[in-house]
């Protein structure tokens, strides 16, 4: 499949691999301590010792990007992964079983799709991850879990609907009837005939969803309810949001990383979809 990728898809793939490398191998890289102030405040890019410059607090931007990639990608991948898994299971159940199950699940999907995701996250964080005592802070890990849950809830109905549609189409395929006519059990038909065919469309949408989730996480940070201080791309933006005049790089650098990653995800998602479409048209 990789061989057939276009130029932009190859670049996107390389970019995502680099981000993944940052996220995994970040602590091993010879970088300045991301939480340490340096003397250079608001330095531009390619300043000696600071590859991408510093912000007005003197934090090294590149080191923060590398550390932030871990949280940004972790949140995105976990919530999309969980959401795809649960949405996929529900969608397959709805599309394969039809009838009442389908009716109830479709209503459930529609209700959840109607909830604006930012408000859902705000409410969940306010209720589950905020301490009523302002002097006590809530652990970052708890906030992280709540953010992931709220994003997962947003992903489930999207993936659920996509999977349901795809499952409906494949369930009516003749080879499924053929498998039935050979006396296969439903679970076996789902495992061997439905899932392998539905999976590509789940992948394609999941990649698009990863892009969306990265942006949502950034927005949450800007609203002050992201994870901690400066440990995700979104919270880097939040920390520097007032400094555009004095240290533009402190905003442009995380923004560029965020934008490029989202574009790369969308590009890969599109490439997967195209690959899928052309494969189907060959049948």
């Amino acid at each position, binding site marked *: 499949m990789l061989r057939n990728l276009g130029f932009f898809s190859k670049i996107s793939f390389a970019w995502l691999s680099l981000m993944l490398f940052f996220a995994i191998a970040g602590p091993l890289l010879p970088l300045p301590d991301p939480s340490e102030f340096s003397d250079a405040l608001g330095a531009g890019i390619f300043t000696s010792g600071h590859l991408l410059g510093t912000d007005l607090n003197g934090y090294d931007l590149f080191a923060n990007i590398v550390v932030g990639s871990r949280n940004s990608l972790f949140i995105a991948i976990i919530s999309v992964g969980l959401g795809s898994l649960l949405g996929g299971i529900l969608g397959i159940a709805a599309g394969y079983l039809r009838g009442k199950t389908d009716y109830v699940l479709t209503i459930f999907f529609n209700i959840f799709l109607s909830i604006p995701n930012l408000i859902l996250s705000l409410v969940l964080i306010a209720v589950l991850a905020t301490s009523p005592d302002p002097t006590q802070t809530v652990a970052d890990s708890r906030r992280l879990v709540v953010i992931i849950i709220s994003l997962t809830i947003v992903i489930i109905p999207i993936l659920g609907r996509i999977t349901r549609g795809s499952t409906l189409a494949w369930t009516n395929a*003749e080879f499924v*009837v*053929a498998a039935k006519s*050979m*006396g*296969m059990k439903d679970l076996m038909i789902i495992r061997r005939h439905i899932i*392998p*065919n539905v999976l590509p469309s789940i992948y394609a949408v999941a990649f698009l969803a990863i892009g969306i989730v990265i942006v949502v996480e950034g927005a949450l940070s800007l609203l002050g309810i992201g994870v901690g201080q400066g440990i995700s791309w979104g919270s880097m933006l939040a920390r520097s949001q007032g400094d555009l005049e004095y240290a533009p790089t402190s905003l442009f650098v995380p923004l560029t990383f965020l934008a490029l990653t989202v574009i790369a995800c969308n590009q890969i998602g599109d490439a997967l979809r195209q690959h899928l479409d052309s494969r189907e048209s*060959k049948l």
Partner: protein
Amino acid sequence: MQSNRRCPSTAPRQQGVKTVSELLRVSNLDVRFDTARGLLHAVKDVSFNLEPGESLGIVGESGSGKTVLSRATMGLLTMSTAKKSGSVVLNDVEITKLSRSELRSKWGTEMAIVFQDPMTALNPVRRIGDQIAEGPRVRLGMSKKDAKQRAIELLKMVQIAEPEKVLKKFPLQLSGGMRQRVMIAIAIACNPKILFADEPTTALDVTVQAQILGLISSLRKQLNMSLILVTHDLGVVAGHTDKIAVMYAGEIVEMAPTKELFSNVRMPYTEALLNSIPRITNQSGIRLPVIEGRLPDPTLPQNGCGFSARCKYATEKCHTERPQLVDGGNGHMYRCFFPLGVNK
């Protein structure tokens, strides 16, 4: 009434084997679909029987209910909109009353089906070998190794060269004829007693059609299976079935042993079908006769004979009164007030 419907069996081919019991008996099978336009009466009060090793051709035009009949007989009509009545007895077991899992245990091992379009009836993302081995693995509990051996054996039976290579291929790497052979291999993998072939050659080239039909026929004899061959082409069933049922608008309008049917056509519809087969002896430049008109709307109730609107012999009686299936001797049954070649 019941005995009137019973069709005398044609002589089974094998010598020395006493076939007293029948393998399949379908009586008064009736299928309706609840559609947006109303109740669609797809199969009307159909009865037939089948002996071990016997083959039956079900012939009719598109929309005559032949596919629904074969699926309903197997119990494969699972949509909630289908309303079924009547009885289907397979090996002395009434299968319309079985639970889903009991019915499932009959599929594959007792009844199997070959579908019309081998392009869509194979899973595009799984290898041929896995798809053939699935039946023996799951239904017969074979080990992976035995199932692979069985798959090779089956591919040899359906006359595919280099079966080991074909096992590793995906459906889209095979030609239409090869895919239909694979479908047949899948269907016979668990030694079914009845093979349903639902227009098995419609999607294929004419040259391949004859090979596939020949293959199905020879496998039927080799494995002593019964065969129900559903098709819209009288020419297809002519050489490959012991008896033929002609369907029109959901009813069996004529049923007879194959030779008897072709030599003594009784039903005007069958005659019209036969006349519309192109023949090498037809004079060139002359239009092939067609049957004017269309099937009656299956959602509307019918008075009289379903074919009366298109029948050139139809009289007032045909439009108002419903003909019953009558036994004309020699196992020949027809549903017509004015059968051809019979003097009143």
